[in-house]
Each structure stands twice: as C-alpha cells, then as structure tokens.
C-alpha cells in the first residue's frame, strides 16, 4: 500500500493536523506490517467492506420489527439474541460475544454505554457511532442519564425507571424499544423503518413521523 495513495476520501481532514498525522502513521505502519507478512492489505479491504456494507444497524431493526409482530419470536430473541439473528439469516458465524436484549416497557427505559472503551454489539450492529465512543457520552450518561437522554431527544417521565448498562466486560447489550402507537397493521418492513441505531442504544425512541 506504500506506493498507492488513496487520499480522495480524506478531504474532510485535510485541514486537521491530527487526522493528517494519524493517516500518515497508519500508512507507515501498514507498509511495515505488510512487508513483515503480518498483515494482508486485501484482508483489510475485506474487513472494511464488511463494516461499510454488510453489517450495520439494519440487522437490529429487522430483529426488533419481527419481535414487535411475533410474540414467540420476541421471546426467542430475548432468550438468545444470536439464535434469533441466525433465524433471520443475520448471524455471521460462530463464536460471537454474547448479546443481552434489554426490553423497554411502560415503566422502564434502558440505555447502553461503555465507560472504559467502546464495547458494543458490533458483530451484529456494526461499529458504534463516534458520540458513543466520545468522552462526553461516556462520562455523563452514567451520572446524569435523564439529562443526557433529554438532550438527545428522549424525555423519560419521572415515574419511569432509567437503567444504564455499562458494558464493562464480555457481554454486549442491545435495547428492544417499545412499538410506537399508531402502527397497528403495519408491515414488518414499515416497522423496521422506524427503528434507528440510536433506538437500539436507548438514546432515541421509535415514533411515527408526523406529516
């Protein structure tokens, strides 16, 4: 890769010295590791493509929509998220980090964070957004979750318990949001379109768009 520059999509950072420095060092390190035979550049391409194209929040939106329309599937999803993903053809191989499904309900709102690093159900939902990995979110959501949720657009009523899940070890967490009112008779695909990545983290609430 050392002779083969691809800076076209780095333009956003051309004026950012830190990003320039990181890009330069990444290229230097990659060229060394490739020369050592320790890293295969085309395997990097494959990994990048997998996260850019194959794995993403769409997987979670499909699982949630199915859970909303099929109570038996919902029970299986909550009992074993990976088995449910496999059932929908969304699992990508064995040996995944376990995922616990957190059910929002009338009296409880769940929200997920990783204060120590960036733990997230990445194998199912893709890579977490930058805000999830940022010091403001990681520092604040454990101390003042209702304030942070309100800032991000979710007002949690005082009589609703907030549960903050700090993914500090080997288990990852995914929020199963409540099905919004006004969606009776909707198809699974229509329902899935209401579920966002942020709703799967717990910082958004699916809602029917108002015209």
């Amino acid at each position, binding site marked *: 890769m050392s002779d083969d520059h691809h800076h076209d999509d780095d333009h956003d950072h051309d004026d950012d010295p830190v990003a320039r420095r990181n890009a330069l060092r990444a290229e230097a390190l990659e060229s060394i590791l490739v020369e050592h035979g*320790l890293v295969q550049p085309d395997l990097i391409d494959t990994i990048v493509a997998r996260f850019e194209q194959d794995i993403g929040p769409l997987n979670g939106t499909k699982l949630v929509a199915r859970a909303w329309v099929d109570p038996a599937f919902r029970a299986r999803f909550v009992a074993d998220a990976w088995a449910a993903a496999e059932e929908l053809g969304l699992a990508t191989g064995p040996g995944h980090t376990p995922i616990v499904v957190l059910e929002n309900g009338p009296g409880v709102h769940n929200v997920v964070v990783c204060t120590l690093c960036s733990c997230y159900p990445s194998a199912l939902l893709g890579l977490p957004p930058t805000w999830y990995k940022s010091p403001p979110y990681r520092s604040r959501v454990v101390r003042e979750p209702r304030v942070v949720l309100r800032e991000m657009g979710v007002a949690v009523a005082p009589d609703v318990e907030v549960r*903050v899940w700090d993914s500090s070890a080997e288990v990852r967490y995914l929020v199963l949001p409540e099905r919004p009112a006004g969606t009776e008779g909707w198809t699974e695909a229509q329902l899935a379109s209401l579920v966002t990545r942020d709703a799967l983290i717990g910082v958004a609430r699916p809602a029917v768009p108002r015209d």
Partner: protein
Amino acid sequence: MNGIHDLGGMHGFGPVAVERDEPVFHGRWEGRVLGMVYQMVGFGWLNIDAFRHGIERTPPVDYLRLGYYGRWLAALERVLVERGVLAPRQVDARCDGTIIPAPPLPALPETMAGPFERTLERAPRFQVGDPVRVLVAGPAGHTRLPRYVAGRRGIVTRRHAAYVYPDSNAHGRGEDPQHLYNVRFDATELWGDAGEADAHLHLDLFEPYLKSA
C-alpha cells in the same frame, strides 16, 4: 489502571456531539487501522485485553487529542514495539522516508482471539439477589472495574458464564477464568444526593472485584 480512559462520572466534557448521517469511517486511514488491529488480534500477535491496555496507557493528553482510531493506532504501535515485532521508532523512521531494519520476528505468542467463555469447576460465590460490595482495588495494570463503582454496594441481578479474566490475560499471566456477574447499583449509592431518582446502573463485574455485603 486509574487512567483517562476510565471516564464514567467525570465532569467537564460538555455536551454530547451527535453527527448526523455519520459515515462508518471518516477517513480511509481509520478503516486501515481497524483492519490492522483485527488481523493482529485475529492472528494471535496480541490479545484484545493487551490491546485495550495499550489504549489505556496512551498518555492522557494524547488519549483525548488523537481521537478514537488515533488511540487505536498509538496502542497498536506501542504494543507491537513492546512485543518486539517493531523496532522502537520504526514507524517514525518510515514516516520520514528512512528505513530501520525490522527486528527478527519473535515467536507467535499463544494468544487467542476468542471466544472468551470458559468452563469453571469452581462454583460461583454469589447468587442472584446477593448484596455485594465492590473492592477498592486500583491496580496499576489492566482492569474492567470502573473507579466510579469502587467501594460501592449493589445487588447481583444476573449470573453470566465464566470468562477469561482480562486483568490477567492483558499481562500475559494466563487466562485465569473468573465468574462474571451483572450488579445493579442505585444512582444515589454512586453519586450521593446528585444521583437521579429512580435511576440504576448495571455493570458486569468479575468475581474477584466483589465481596459479600
């Protein structure tokens, strides 16, 4: 370690900045770094715990300044130099267009890329419903015990499986598997009067972090 990465509960970082329609990677280099890390971990050159500890040891100012994948890059370089895979300053030299010869490749360490679940003969010490208190440990090395729960009292709400113990594995001291529990804390137990009403924190904590309360 009691480092800058242990952010839970710190003040002063300001509002959460949300980027609309954020791309998966903001520059090509971010994906290259992720792909390198996945391969070096996947092929066994470093385990994930050692990599995380490498990130934690990024000097605090750099940790905040370099950004997420910048920290990954710094950690990868640091750990590979420590392992003898890279010569010190080999990347600096490459950036300047000079070549420092690579050291002879060390033997591939026997590390694993996962899964991390293990069968443990030893029975778990705690059951669901048990009150527990988190130790005040503060080790200088790697740990998955955030400082904001140190010394605090909670209730075991879930017993997970046993897993490779990151506190040991990060330092090449073996897997030393431990039982893992989810422990629930009242917000006021953690933050005193500043804790929000009817808010609870749930953390996965390894057995050595806990004692009966």
